[in-house]
């Protein structure tokens, strides 16, 4: 029997804001029947662009229902920017804690909120804030968990092993084929945490010495930038251009909606670099130049 807090049980027994809104401003759907949990979140904004109302529907266990219920309460009255800063940890804290094995239920709440906000920005034809873009690799195919979700969880909670990752994100809880990849992500993150790199703001150019020449990589980099990265950014009103390649440093400039986005640096480091490393070479470093 899980040791649920009274608050979890209260929100499970008396869920707030169940249902869907007519003509919602944003709709987010995550999970699936196969996953064992799914959540649909809808919200409506008022004239001041604050969340006036929110509703949820959840297929899932007691803590999934409670997480969804409390999330709708938490976001009401908030601006989208304020709502976007809610983490899954905040959701769990608001419930007076969740069992370790159930942390993924709060992650699902956070993801549904993200999806609903992206839906809102897209409907409006606005650029999606870079903080919401999570274009990355699916690591766990059983539960459709992306690399960034796993990385975020490992960094945030300083997770040490695969079991912990599974409890927090569900990743690796199915066929176990991704365990090797998850271990790799954990190792990467732990290395970063130990070296202090994770703490440091990513604002400087990383010095790389003794690099091999560009070779045919220029073309490969250009192709990935154009085909995968720029195309995705453009759907959200942004764009990216290649300035130059110096050794292993890929210098790029962000334009459009991305140019004015304060979190573009994170986008560059997190996603663009990830894509280039995956498709071209593991040792590439992305540098953003003059806006």
């Amino acid at each position, binding site marked *: 029997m899980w040791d649920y807090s009274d608050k979890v*049980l209260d929100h*499970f*027994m*008396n*869920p*707030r804001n*169940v249902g*869907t809104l007519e003509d919602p401003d944003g709709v987010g*759907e995550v*999970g*699936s*029947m*196969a996953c*064992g*949990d*799914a*959540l*649909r979140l809808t919200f409506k904004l008022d004239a001041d662009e604050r969340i006036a109302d929110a509703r949820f*529907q*959840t*297929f*899932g*266990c*007691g803590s*999934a*229902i409670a997480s969804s219920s409390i999330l709708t309460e938490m976001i009401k009255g908030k601006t989208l920017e304020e709502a976007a800063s809610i983490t899954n940890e905040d959701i769990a804290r608001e419930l007076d804690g969740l069992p370790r*094995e*159930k942390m993924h239920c709060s992650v699902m709440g956070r993801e549904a909120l993200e999806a609903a906000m992206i839906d809102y920005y897209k409907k409006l034809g606005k650029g999606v804030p870079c903080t919401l873009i999570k274009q990355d690799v699916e690591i766990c195919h*059983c*539960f459709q968990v992306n690399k960034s979700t796993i990385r975020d969880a490992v960094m945030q909670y300083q997770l040490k092993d695969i079991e912990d990752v*599974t409890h927090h994100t*569900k990743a690796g*809880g*199915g066929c176990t084929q991704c365990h090797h990849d998850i271990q790799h992500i954990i190792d990467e993150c732990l290395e970063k945490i130990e070296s202090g790199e994770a703490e440091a703001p990513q604002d400087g150019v990383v010095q790389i010495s003794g690099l091999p020449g560009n070779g045919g990589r220029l073309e490969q980099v250009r192709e990935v930038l154009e085909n995968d990265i720029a195309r995705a950014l453009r759907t959200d009103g942004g764009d990216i251009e290649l300035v130059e390649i110096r050794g292993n440093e890929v210098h790029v400039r962000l334009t459009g909606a991305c140019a004015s986005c304060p979190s573009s640096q994170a986008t560059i480091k997190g996603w663009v670099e990830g894509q280039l490393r995956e498709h071209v070479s593991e040792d590439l470093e992305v540098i953003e130049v003059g806006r």
Partner: protein
Amino acid sequence: MSAMDLFEDLPERPAGGVYLDNNATTAVAPEVREVLLPYLTSHYGNPSSMHGFGADAGRAVDRARDQVTALIAAESPSEVVFTGGGSESDNLAIVGTLRAYPDRKHIVSTVVEHPAVLGLCRELESRHGYEVTYLPVDARGGLDLDELRAAIRPDTAVVSIMAANNETGVVFPYERIGEIVKAAGAVYHVDAVQAVGKLPMDMSASTIDLLSLSGHKLHACKGVGALYVRRGTKLRPLIVGGHQERGRRAGTENVPGLAALGEACELAGRHMDEERTRVRELRDRLETRIVDAVPDCRVNGDPDHRLPNTSNISFDYIEGEGILLLLDRFGIGASSGSACTSGSLEPSHVLKAMGIPFISAHGSVRFSLSRYTTEEEIDYTAAVIPRIVDRLRTITPFSEQRQTF
């Protein structure tokens, strides 16, 4: 949405709650408790000791062995080896056989076994170089005996197949299986933890070489079980040390536990007919009422070959843990094959093996009755279930459009 409306106009809650999780564990029978207690107080001797204290304890162990022997109609009490429970019995049966036949490196089992057998088989495969063939089951949870015939090889040491499934209650044709196994020359182990006490067992006219049973599934206490070992069956011990259990299981006997197991077996024998009549009728009554009252639900398993006390029902579009949490609020204890209840993320391996779709597997609930279950409890449960399912279906995104995701 408030919880209050859930509780309106409900029949009165039976005193002490409603326990419908007897396949997980059972209440210790009052008669069993009475027999057990003196061995915790005045009769505390070691059966191996040369004095009156020891002799009292020794007599209790002998009596318990006779009682177990009688329940499964074994030919001799010497065929009963006491263990620390069902899992140990399974481990002793399988590993003990493999050690007795060191040249045989193959095992046959099924995909729906209890973790006690499945987990062991996986361990033997991955770390000890054994090969295991897991027989599949059909949609009703049944085996294809031709597949069994084809699976047994000259180097098959042991075929380990359960008598009855703990989740669905599906009963395998264990004597027909045994004929095939014996004809092929392998040792035949049956995990009968769920069957003993609910179905009559007759080892004197059986093909079974090794049979596991557990005390706490038949109203004895936890931490005690037995392995029936047919006379002449080669078996190496797992726990080595003293001479107890004729060298097949070392360690000072759990005298109170064994006294309890013996008494529980005797009681089970006396109540066997009740399982097949009154308990079955109550189970059927619960099942019929639920199926009549709740749309989109189904009974899992084989209605023609099932334990009389077990019902496994899937409620589509909702998730099992929520059902159990709500049932608990009504004082009803049941269990679920849903992923969330176990802490694993996969729904029941048994339902998955039967090809039950995710939409149903996550919302499965197992009700398992005992001879202590009353009609009042069943009627109360049957009244509660439709409300709970209704409530959860108003929360799920699936029931509204049924194809949303």
